[in-house]
C-alpha cells in the first residue's frame, strides 16, 4: 500500500512537471513566434527556407527594408492560390465542376485553349479545320512531352477524346457530351501528327467545345494505373507538374522544365481551399496566399483598404436568374412571367447586394457570347406595369414561393430575399421564400420529368464555351436536362442553329431565338455574376471570365 502510494505520487509529480514544462514552452514559443512570424509571412508558404534569410516584407524590421531589389535574382518565386473548395480527385475527365478544373488545368491541357478574353488559342494542336460538315481535323504540335518524359502521340489524343465521350473507354464519366455537343461521337482517327474526329451531326461549335474541354492524358499511363492512382497523381503536358498531393487539403506544383510553350514565371504553385470566405480573405491579408477566389461584397472594402492586396473583379460566364415553369399556373401565363420581370428591381439588387459587381441581363445569352442580341434591353423596374400585367393575366391575389439554394452562388440567399420582397410588395401577388440546401434542390431541378421540377427557383448557369446554345439547349428547350420551357418555336430555332454551318447565319438565328426568349420571359432575368478575386501585391495576375485561374501567367511584382 505505501509503495503503491509513492509510485503514483511520483507519476503525478512527473505529470505536473511535464504539464508545467509544456505551459512554459508554449508561452516562450508564443513570444518567439511574435518576432519571427512576420518574416515567415513574406515567403508565402514556401517552406524551403526557415524565414531566416527573408526579411523583405512590409512588416520587416526596418533596417532591411532598403534592399527590396535583392530578391529578384536567385530567390524562387512561389504562388499560392486559395479556392473555395478542393478538387474531387485529379482525374481531368472524371469531374464536372470548376474547382477541380482549375486545379488540374495547371498540368493538363487540351488541343486548344482560351486566352484571357475567351478567344480560342492553340495548345496541343497547332491547326484545326472542318474538313467536312461533321468532321474536324487537328494538326498536333511537335515535341510535346508528358511530365513522365514520354512523347505525346496522336494515339493519346484519340484515347483522351474517346475516354471523355464513350463509355467503353474508362467507363461512364460525367463529361459525356463535352466534345460532341448535342450529337454523338462517331469516329476518331489517329494519323501521323494529326487526329480526325467525326461526329454524328454537324456539331457547329466543335472548336468552342474543344477549346474548353477535352484535356489530353497519356493512354498507357491511364491504362497501367488504377483509379486511386490517377486521382492522386498527374501526368499532363502543361506548365506545372505535381510535387505533392494531400487529398482535400492541398496540391503542390513546380515549374515543368520541359514545357513546350513559354514557361510559367512561378517556380512553385500551391493550391489550397477554404470554404469560409472570411478565412480566405484573412489568409490573403496575412500574406499567406496570393490569389483568393470569390471575395464576397461585404469583404471588398477590407481588402481594398489594406496595403498588401487588392480586389480584381471580372465579369464571369455565369448568369443568375429566377426560372418559372411554363406549364404551371400562374407561371403558364406569359403576362404573369413578364410581370415578374417588371416587379424585380435588378439594378438595386446589383447596387446594394452585390456592391455593383454584376451586369443586368435581359436575355439568356451574355454579351461576350456568340448569339448575344445587342438590341435587347433589360425589362427594367416598373411595379405599376407589373401589377397591371398580373391583373391582365387573371392571377391577381395569387400566392407563390421562390426557392433558392443556400451559398451556392454569390449572395444567392440575399438576392432571392430581395427579389421575393419586391414581388411580395406588389399589391396583387404574395411571394414567399424557401431556402434549400443545394444538393437537395438540384435533385428536384434535374428531375427526369418537367412536371417534377420546382415551379419558381433561383439558379445560376456557367457557360465556359461562350456560345448561346450551351445555355439555351439544357435550360430552355423541350429535351433540355433541366428545362422548364417547352416551346416549339424555340426548339425549331435551336434546331436550325445546330445544323447551320455558316457562322454568320447561325449567329442571326441565335439572336432571333434570344429575342423570342426575352419576350417569352421563362426567367426573371437577373444579372451576370462577377468573379471577384483578391490578389496580393506580390504578384501580377489578371483574372479571366471563364472562372479558370491561369496561374502560369502570374508574375512577380
Amino acid at each position, binding site marked *: 500500500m505505501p509503495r503503491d502510494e509513492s509510485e503514483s505520487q511520483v507519476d503525478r509529480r512527473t505529470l505536473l512537471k511535464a504539464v508545467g514544462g509544456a505551459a512554459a514552452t508554449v508561452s516562450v514559443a508564443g513570444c*518567439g513566434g511574435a518576432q519571427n512570424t512576420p518574416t515567415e509571412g513574406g515567403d508565402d508558404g514556401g517552406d524551403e527556407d526557415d524565414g531566416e534569410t527573408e526579411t523583405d516584407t512590409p512588416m520587416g524590421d526596418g533596417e532591411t527594408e532598403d534592399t527590396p531589389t535583392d530578391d529578384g535574382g536567385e530567390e524562387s518565386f512561389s504562388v499560392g492560390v486559395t479556392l473555395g473548395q478542393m478538387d474531387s480527385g485529379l482525374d481531368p475527365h472524371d469531374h*464536372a465542376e470548376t474547382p477541380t478544373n482549375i486545379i488540374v488545368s495547371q498540368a493538363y491541357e487540351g488541343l486548344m485553349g482560351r486566352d484571357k478574353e475567351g478567344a480560342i488559342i492553340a495548345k496541343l494542336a497547332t491547326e484545326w479545320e472542318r474538313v467536312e460538315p461533321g468532321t474536324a481535323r487537328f494538326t498536333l504540335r511537335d515535341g510535346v512531352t508528358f511530365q513522365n518524359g514520354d512523347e505525346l502521340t496522336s494515339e493519346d489524343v484519340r484515347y483522351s477524346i474517346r475516354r471523355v465521350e464513350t463509355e467503353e473507354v474508362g467507363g*461512364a464519366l460525367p463529361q459525356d457530351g463535352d466534345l460532341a455537343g448535342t450529337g454523338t461521337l462517331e469516329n476518331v482517327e489517329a494519323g501521323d501528327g494529326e487526329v480526325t474526329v467525326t461526329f454524328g451531326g454537324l456539331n457547329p461549335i466543335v472548336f468552342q467545345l474543344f477549346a474548353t474541354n477535352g484535356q489530353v492524358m497519356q493512354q498507357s499511363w491511364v491504362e497501367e494505373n488504377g483509379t486511386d492512382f490517377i486521382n492522386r497523381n498527374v501526368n499532363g503536358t502543361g506548365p506545372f507538374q505535381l510535387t505533392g498531393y494531400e*487529398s482535400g487539403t492541398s496540391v503542390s506544383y513546380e515549374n515543368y522544365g520541359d514545357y513546350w510553350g513559354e514557361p510559367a514565371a512561378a517556380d512553385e504553385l500551391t493550391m489550397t481551399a477554404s470554404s469560409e470566405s472570411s*478565412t480566405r480573405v484573412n489568409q490573403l491579408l496575412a500574406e499567406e496566399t496570393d490569389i483568393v477566389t470569390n471575395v464576397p461584397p461585404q469583404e471588398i472594402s477590407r481588402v481594398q483598404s489594406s496595403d498588401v492586396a487588392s480586389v480584381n473583379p471580372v465579369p464571369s460566364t455565369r448568369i443568375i436568374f429566377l426560372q418559372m415553369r411554363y406549364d404551371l399556373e400562374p407561371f403558364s401565363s406569359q403576362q404573369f412571367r413578364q410581370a415578374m420581370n417588371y416587379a424585380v428591381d435588378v439594378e438595386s439588387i446589383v447596387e446594394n447586394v452585390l456592391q455593383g459587381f454584376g451586369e443586368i441581363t435581359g436575355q439568356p445569352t451574355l454579351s461576350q457570347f456568340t448569339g448575344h442580341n445587342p438590341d435587347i434591353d433589360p425589362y427594367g423596374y416598373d411595379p405599376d406595369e407589373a401589377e397591371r400585367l398580373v391583373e391582365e393575366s387573371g392571377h391577381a391575389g395569387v400566392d407563390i414561393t421562390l426557392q433558392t439554394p443556400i451559398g451556392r452562388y454569390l449572395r444567392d440567399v440575399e438576392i432571392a430575399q430581395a427579389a421575393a420582397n419586391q414581388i411580395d410588395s406588389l399589391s396583387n401577388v404574395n411571394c414567399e421564400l424557401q431556402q434549400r440546401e443545394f444538393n437537395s434542390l438540384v435533385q428536384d431541378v434535374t428531375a427526369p420529368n418537367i412536371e417534377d421540377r420546382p415551379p419558381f427557383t433561383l439558379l445560376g448557369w456557367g457557360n465556359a464555351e461562350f456560345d448561346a446554345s450551351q445555355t439555351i439547349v439544357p435550360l430552355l428547350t423541350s429535351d433540355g436536362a433541366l428545362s422548364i420551357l417547352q416551346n416549339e418555336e424555340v426548339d425549331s430555332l435551336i434546331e436550325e442553329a445546330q445544323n447551320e454551318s455558316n457562322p454568320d447565319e447561325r449567329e442571326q438565328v441565335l439572336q432571333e431565338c434570344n429575342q423570342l426568349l426575352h419576350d417569352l420571359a421563362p426567367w426573371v432575368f437577373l444579372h451576370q455574376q462577377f468573379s471577384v478575386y483578391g490578389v496580393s501585391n506580390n504578384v501580377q495576375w489578371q483574372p479571366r471570365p471563364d472562372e479558370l485561374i491561369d496561374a502560369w501567367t502570374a508574375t512577380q511584382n
Partner: protein
Amino acid sequence: MSLGRLAVKRSLQGIGVVWGVITVVFALRFITPGSVINAVAPLDASQETRQAIAAELGLDQPLYVQYGQYLVELVQGDMGFSYVKGQAVVTMVFERVPATLELAVAATVVAIVLSIPLGVLSATRRNSPVDYGATLFSLGGISTPNFWLGIMLILVFAVQFDVFQTSGRGATSVAVVASLVGPEPFVGTLLEWLSYITLPAIALGTYFMALITRLTRSGMLDELGKSYVRAARAKGAPEALVRYKHALRNTLIPVITVLGLQLGTLIGGAVITEAVFAWPGLGTLVIQSINLRDWPALQGCLIVIGTAFVIVNIVVDIIYGYLDPRVVYD
C-alpha cells in the same frame, strides 16, 4: 486478468457500436434528399449519363445489397472508394487522422494546463477575487461559441498582429520530433508547428478548460470539507500536502473521466473549429462528405471516430482503476 477481460468486453461492445453507426448511416440514405450523382455529374447531364454513373458506383443496386456488400468488404479491411474522388477511402481517412489527433491532444493540453491549477486556486481561495475571476473566466469560456472565438483569434492574432497563421497546418508534430535528429533546424520547425496549431488548440480547448475548471473547483471544495482532510489537518500535516496530495488526487478522479470522454468528443466533434481554421482533419472531411453525399467517405470517417471513442473509453476505465484502487472491474 480482469483488465484483459474488460478490454475484450469493451472491444466487442465497440464493434457493436461501429456496426450500429454504419447501419444508421445506411438508413440515412433513405431519407436524405439529394444524391451523389449531383456532385459527380454536371447539372445538364442526360438521364443516360446519370444512370450510367449510378450503375458504375453501384447505386442502382437495392440498398440491402449495397449494405451487404459494404459489410463483407469492410470485414476484409476494405472501406471502398470515394464516390466523388475515386480515391480509396482508407487512405483518405487515415491521412486525416494524425491532424485531428494532434489538434485534440493539443486542445486537451491547453485545457489541462490552465484549468486544473485555476480550479485548485479558486477552491482554496474561495470567495476571493481570484475565485471570482476564475468563475467569470470559466463562465465566459463555457458560453462562448468556439467558432466565434476562432474567428476572433484569427482576426486579432493572425491578421492584426500577424503572430500566428490564419489557417491550415504547417509542420506536423512528427516533423518537430524528427527535426531533433534530422537536418531541419529544430527551433524553426517547432515555431512553424506552433504558429499553426496554437490558435485552433485554444479555440477548441477553451470550452473544456472552462468545464474542467468548474469541475476541479467543485470537486476540490467537496473533498476539502471531508473528514479525512480534517483528520490530516488535526494530525498537523502540512497544508500543501493535505491539499495537493490528498484532496487534489481524489478530485482528479471525475476530472479524468470527463477529460477522457471529452477527448473522444474532440476527435469527432472538432468539426466546426476545423472548418474555421481549414485544419485538414477528419471534421472537414465529414462536412465535405455530407455536402457531396459521399457516403463511403462519410462511413469511413464515422468508423474511425466511433473506434476512437471506444478506445478512449477503455483507456479511461483503466486509468480510473489505477487512480482509485477501490474500483473493481467485473
